[in-house]
């Protein structure tokens, strides 16, 4: 299949007197998968509209194979370019197959009925989007996700060489989201189809797109590879939220987490957690939600416990990555432990680097130990940790999981009050 080139040349769009797009420049050719991202009202949908000949740009041109789309016949464009809208409202009782066959409109002469060839193409498109079994169902009786799969099949029945999608998987369950996007990615690579898609899910955008265009207030804020566009700084500036951007160890793709702000004010007692290696992440969140005043120590910078604690704006005694606990941070930790009403020792592995945490825990007034595995299995100090641990256990409340911690804390709180 001959691939197409789309060139967006310095376009600007206006609704009445409000500028919604300005200085937009980019081009796409066969096999490109471009994601358009940006907050609400940043001009994402308008950009798609101006490319698909719905909203004529005030200045600039949109070129399809070097020809201005606003001088081309709609049918000519529709043979090359298909659009999947965000939402389709079809209130008439056409069957799903009839709707998909409408995708053949640009290929048919005025008086031509849909023929065998068109039916074969429609069937193939519906099989690809897993919608063939819906063919006899009236479109207005389908669920949002089923309808969207039919609409995507309609777009594919146009046999387009470029596909524009506006938040295409919004109405789909997660399994269909992946299935549809995988399919689009496959067509993008195998058929050299140009794909330009608006996404609001940054993770999905980074996973599927070769290039991203980040729009902010109608202008391109950043464009390029996901790693260059989806930085903490860019996202904070454009969306106004703090995020953590991590790279997935297996796929190498980016994972963007919005950081949550602390919702509840601490009204209950002080809880200090001796933690590390991510063992305290969920418990920490639950304690904060329950209104405890939580602190942690000693934790290496970069540990997921550390990241979570910083996100929740908790007191943390920190240590450089992969270093032994220094005397200084040991003392700081001890100070917090003494101030705490309750100390929780999570199910951490103990090595020579962090054995001082166990020593500090000895000073705890009310110690709760979370033990998921016996200490022997996570002792990397040839027995010294085990010895210290058993001493701690003798004077501590022992629990198996986070849920039990919360219960025990509750009962201790009520005892302390009475």
């Amino acid at each position: 299949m001959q691939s197409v080139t789309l060139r967006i040349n310095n376009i600007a769009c206006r609704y009445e007197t409000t500028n919604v797009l300005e200085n937009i420049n980019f081009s796409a050719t066969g096999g490109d998968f471009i994601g358009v991202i940006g907050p609400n009202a940043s001009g994402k949908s308008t950009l798609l509209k101006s490319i698909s000949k719905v909203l004529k740009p005030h200045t600039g041109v949109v070129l399809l194979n070097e020809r201005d789309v606003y001088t081309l016949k709609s049918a000519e464009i529709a043979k090359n370019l298909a659009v999947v809208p965000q939402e389709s409202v079809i209130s008439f009782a056409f069957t799903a197959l009839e709707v998909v066959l409408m995708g053949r409109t640009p290929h048919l002469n005025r008086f031509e009925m849909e023929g065998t060839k068109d039916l074969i193409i429609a069937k193939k498109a519906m099989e690809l989007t897993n919608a063939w079994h819906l063919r006899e169902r009236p479109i207005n009786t389908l669920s949002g996700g089923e309808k969207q799969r039919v609409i995507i099949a309609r777009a594919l029945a146009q046999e387009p060489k470029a596909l524009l999608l506006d938040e295409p998987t919004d109405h789909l369950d997660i399994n269909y989201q992946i299935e549809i996007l995988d399919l689009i990615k496959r067509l993008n690579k195998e058929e050299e189809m140009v794909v330009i898609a608006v996404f609001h899910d940054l993770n999905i955008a980074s996973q599927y797109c070769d290039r991203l265009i980040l729009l902010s207030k109608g202008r391109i804020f950043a464009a390029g590879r996901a790693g260059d566009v989806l930085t903490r700084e860019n996202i904070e500036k454009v969306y106004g939220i703090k995020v953590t951007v991590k790279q997935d160890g297996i796929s190498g793709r980016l994972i963007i987490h919005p950081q949550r702000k602390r919702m509840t004010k601490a009204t209950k007692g002080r809880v200090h957690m001796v933690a590390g290696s991510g063992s305290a992440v969920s418990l920490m969140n639950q304690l904060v939600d329950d209104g405890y005043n939580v602190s942690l120590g000693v934790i290496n910078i970069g540990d997921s416990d550390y990241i979570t604690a910083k996100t929740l704006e908790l007191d943390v005694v920190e240590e450089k990555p992969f270093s032994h606990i220094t005397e200084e941070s040991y003392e700081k930790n001890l100070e917090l432990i003494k101030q705490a009403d309750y100390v929780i020792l999570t199910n951490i592995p103990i090595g020579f680097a962090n054995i001082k945490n166990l020593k500090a825990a000895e000073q705890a007034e009310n110690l709760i130990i979370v033990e998921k595995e016996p200490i022997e299995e996570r002792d990397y100090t040839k027995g010294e940790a085990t010895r210290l641990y058993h001493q701690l256990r003798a004077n501590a409340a022992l629990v198996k999981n986070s849920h039990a911690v919360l219960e025990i804390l509750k009962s201790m709180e009520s005892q302390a009050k009475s």
Partner: protein
Amino acid sequence: MYKNYLKKIFHWKLIITYLTVILGLTVVLTTTLGAAHISSFVVFKILITRLPLVNNLIIPSWSIGEATIILQIRLPRIILGVLVGAALGVAGTTMQGLFKNPMADPYIIGISSGAALGAISTIVFGLSIFGMYTIPLMAFMGAAAAIFLVYNIASVRGKLPVNTLLLAGIAMTLFLSAIISLMMYTAGEKLHGIVFWLMGGLWGRNWNHVMMAFPFILLGTTVIYIFARDLNVMLLGEEPAQHLGIEVETLKKIMILSTSLITAAAVSVSGIIGFVGLIIPHVMRILVGPDHRILLPSSALVGGIFLVWTDTLARTIIAPTEIPVGIITALFGAPFFIYLLRTRKRAMF
């Protein structure tokens, strides 16, 4: 599946064939009914003399009066009924599809009130510049003026937003209705004629009326049918239609002008016959589905059949007195429509 699809097309052809046969039978049968008692056998013979090739096989055995009643009074009226019914069926279907609104009918953008104003002015001021054809001509001009105004009010920078068009049409209708009410209030003994025209009817129409309406209705209907598939795609919404290669703004203009043309032609010769243009499209959508390639021709055929039978009732039920056919269409059509609504589970709009 290809078999299913071929079956669908075969099914469509069958529907059109059946309806055409029913329409033919309707014309012949209703010609035999009327205030003057002429036997069916004689009516058939008179009709056959008008057919090519076989017209010489019949030996005349009827009076000239009988032939005149059949050929100059009943037949043109029935043919006009077919035309007007078909026009209203097609116009209603098109308006509902274009506006994606089940309440739309051929009169929704002000054509009827424009025509009414033209007709009523003629009656009130006693105009007779075109003789007995003054009323239809003035009605047609009124309709054309109204649609011209509404169209220009609604169009914004070359585009025709359908909701604005709808509202402009409703506003125009309200405004013209006020003028009409004022004229009726002061009309005195001419009020009866006005009311009779407003209710719509086909009495006293002759072949000239048929010839006046026929070219417009044929032209408009043909144009609309050419764009039947585009109308289907328009039901997906204007933007999706654009994406599927339809020149949406051009299509809307062509459809509005064609619909106006056939509605104006129909109204000018028959007055404002309600119900047909609103309900026939709904009934046909329930019966044959939403595809305009079958919906338009079957709405035309059934619109014609329906109007001819209701008009026959209107002229025979308390003969020789006539009832305005608009009363009959609603009186008999509405209960049938309610029955269909209740028995069909599938949402139709």
